[in-house]
């Protein structure tokens, strides 16, 4: 029974890690958003395994449904071409062609490294057993890997939606780390619930912003084959 439980935890941790990594580095934005929803579902499963069913419910409602909807809204899935006739959604818009930025590269690397260092310190002192047998808590191990990768992705991506995705995944891994370090006592559950609500509100604000910015970009630089804009030239 216990062996199968640990095995299940390991499998969920592996799936979490895989979903997060693909989500962070997939340049196809729609696919990345779908993967984020999958990631959030696995998060809910992880909360169930950690013995926090209420948190799992909160994660499904806030993380999967609401935050997922924010990303799809930012991509314009709900309103293809209705708000702005000139705004023609095709496969191009779902793809992030921008090169990852190298400006301020050194600062960003330093900041991300400082973050990883502090996180390592936190683990080292609060969960000393992690140093000797890292596989004992597969979920915590997965959350460390995800947090480090997400911080790197956040520092280097330039596309705003991808940065927002990276923030959300970073947030989820920090919540998981919190639960790993402090257990799922009431205080920790309350902190995580507040954190999830804030992450959702932040994503909502970010999605609205991305939409507005897209509209401005579009108004500023119309493509030559645009019907509405083309006539005025």
């Amino acid at each position: 029974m216990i062996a199968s439980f640990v095995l299940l935890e390991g499998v969920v941790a592996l799936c979490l890690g895989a979903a997060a990594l693909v989500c962070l580095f997939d340049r196809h934005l729609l696919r990345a958003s779908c993967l984020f929803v999958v990631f959030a579902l696995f998060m809910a499963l992880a909360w169930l395994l950690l013995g926090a069913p209420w948190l799992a419910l909160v994660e499904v409602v806030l993380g999967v449904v609401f935050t997922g909807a924010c990303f799809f809204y930012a991509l314009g899935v709900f309103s293809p071409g209705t708000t702005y006739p000139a705004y023609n959604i095709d496969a191009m818009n779902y793809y992030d062609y921008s090169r990852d930025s190298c400006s301020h590269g050194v600062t960003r690397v330093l900041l991300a490294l400082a973050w990883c260092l502090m996180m390592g310190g936190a683990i080292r002192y609060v969960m000393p057993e992690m140093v000797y047998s890292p596989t004992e808590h597969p979920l915590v191990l997965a959350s460390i890997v995800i947090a480090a990768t997400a911080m790197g992705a956040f520092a280097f991506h330039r596309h705003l939606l991808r940065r927002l995705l990276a923030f959300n995944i970073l947030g989820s891994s920090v919540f998981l780390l919190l639960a790993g370090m402090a257990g799922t006592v009431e205080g920790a559950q309350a902190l995580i619930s507040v954190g999830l609500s804030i992450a959702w509100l932040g994503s909502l604000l970010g999605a609205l912003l991305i939409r507005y910015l897209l509209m401005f970009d579009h108004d500023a630089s119309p493509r030559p084959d645009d019907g509405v804009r083309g006539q005025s030239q």
Partner: protein
Amino acid sequence: MIWRFGLLNATFEPLWLTHWALAATLVLPILFGLLGALFSTRRVLPVALACLPILLAGGLLLIDYQQAGLLRWQWQVAGVTISLRLNGLGILMLLVTQWVGAAAALYTPGHLRLTNPGKLSRWLWPLMGVLISALSLIWVAADLLTLYAALELMGLAAVGMLLLSGKPAALVAGMRYLLLTLVGSLAYLLGVALVLGYWGQLDLQTLADVVEPGPVAWVAAALMGAGLALKAALFPLHGWLTPVHESAWTPVSALHAALVIKASLFILVMLWSILLPGTSFAPQLVAWLGMLAIVWGGLVAWRANSLKTLVASSTVAQLGYLMVVFPLLLGPDIAPLPQALAWQGFWLQLIGHALAKAAMFMAAGNLILATGESSLKGLAGSSRRLPLSLLIFGIASVTLMGLPPSAGFTAKWLLLQAMVMTQQWVAVAALLVGTLLTAAYVFRVFRYSFDEQAPRHHYQPLAPGMDLIALCLALAAFGLGLLAHLPLSLLHGGVV
């Protein structure tokens, strides 16, 4: 240090009227904000009527505090303990928040009528309400969970308010601010996780008893410090501040520079005094960065081309003064007298800057609105047509420069006294250099505005009261230097 933050047991239970006053300070701003969104008001009278009960509640809390001393509240909600406390510092910051918030709210109708910004403007009221409520909660919160919730609420409301102007530049800057503030809060949360995992406590008073210096406290302090420094725009992490203010509405800028960044700084000082009592490295590091901030912020403000950049960069420099005081507040082996002086100077400087910077942003906003130009060169000739706005700018900058008898002067006097006593000559030098740089960039504004040669075209007349409110704030910062004993008597700690 702990007792200064009122993390002690209270002598008296709060009276029933005190409960209602606290509830009113925390809930009424949100309620009135929602009403404001519903009616989308652009008249001063309803705003003034809404401000009145909130200010009355604040006054009532002040009277209760003076009678009963430290007040504490504690509730159990679903197994989680939520605790609040009201000490002298808390009530002082609460009053400053309410009065500056009321000034910004009263300034807003005139601004909205003149700029006519469209439908988005109705959302300003609920966001402002949430911001004031969250700030009030931060000053009284006494556990890490409440602090986290209030901090995040405040951050999101601030981002939302800054975005309202809707210009593309504002949106790009706002998006950057949003992402940074969210990541900053994750760093803070990881620090909280560490504290909760190691000591199993969220209540600040209990934590102050159980925390012992060691690697865990250091790492937690570093994580929380990094997150909060990012939110407070402390020196190397201040990059988001100027672009955000560049295209924001005037009352929003005033509130943000006066209060929002100060709240993060307040939490930072409070948590560090719990986690890092008597360490020297981290406060020293902050102090060195603060010296750099004074010089860098002053130089950027001096070279600035637009008025708002100048005012926003001066915030970076002014925060540097506060950072320089860190070793005196938190360092080891500081004698009680210089520590008390530094403590008083720190908060007096913070309050004086809050009032003066709000006034300065309003004056700058008035100048920009009236001349229709945001660059310094566009101010040419404004001395004749807009003398009152320039006068307000001048009075506010007297406080920033620290000339007598302003609050800035009294605060710097206290700080210099503490620094000379502890022989921190580098900090003294930084303070003096900062004063010179402030004078340099302020007089640059006057050089342009007293240029009488420029041909002048059209001036937009200002709404009545816009100058008056800014003048009141500037005079408050100016007069606080003479009446400094009033706030300082509140600052003496949890005991009357």
